[in-house]
């Protein structure tokens, strides 16, 4: 189970290939990549702040919870911080399981929890200025299904 919190960009294809090559006994690999939107050309980028130390701990806790709920062979979480341009990958998760149902469910669980339980804060850098992204009630509600 690898967790990486980094400012450097990552190669989604290489990460998924590397992850897939190392899993043993898995029949399914699911991956999700989150990108910076450009909001119709209104966004020039995004700045992501985090809480060094707590971030890694919180993500590890979320991954451990996923492992305890589903039959996972492996999981990977990469999340960036710092300044990102539209189109750049912000984060990715990958899960490997004997069957796809567990891989899909665990990936969705990881995403829902990373959104509102990992200490990251996004600031949108726009043409007209900058603004912190407000958390959505829907993101909090998404946790209730688990």
């Amino acid at each position: 189970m690898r967790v990486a919190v980094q400012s450097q960009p990552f190669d989604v294809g290489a990460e998924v290939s590397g992850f897939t090559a190392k899993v043993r006994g898995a029949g399914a690999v699911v991956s999700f990549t989150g990108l910076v939107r450009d909001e119709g050309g209104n966004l020039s980028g995004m700045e992501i702040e985090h809480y060094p130390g707590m971030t890694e701990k919180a993500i590890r806790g979320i991954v451990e919870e996923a492992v305890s709920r589903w039959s996972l062979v492996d999981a990977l979480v990469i999340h960036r911080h710092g300044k990102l341009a539209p189109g750049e990958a912000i984060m990715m998760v990958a899960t490997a399981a004997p069957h796809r149902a567990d891989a899909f469910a665990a990936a969705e669980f990881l995403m829902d929890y990373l959104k509102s339980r990992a200490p990251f804060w996004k600031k949108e850098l726009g043409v007209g200025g900058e603004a912190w992204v407000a958390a959505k009630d829907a993101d909090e509600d998404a946790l209730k299904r688990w």
Partner: protein
Amino acid sequence: MGVFFEVAAFLAGRQVIDVLYFAWVRERIGLPRERIETSATTVAELVAELRAREERYEAAFADLSSLRVALDQELSSFDAPLAGVREIAFFPPMTGG
């Protein structure tokens, strides 16, 4: 500062805590972290102490429903006790993913 500062604070019934601020909380207060000596026994008491300090703290802590708190890097609540806590962080609801 250092050990003497902490021992003196302990003897006076006070504790020394690193207080961290993130996102707009950090911007409103104007600094990312500070070391505070306090006799507050709960998070809420510490918040009341900070709010009474200066306008910028009052501005940051005006609406607690829009704030989250972590004690020693674990999410916690405003009524949690501060005994033994080394690090406290205040921040808005998280927006990762």
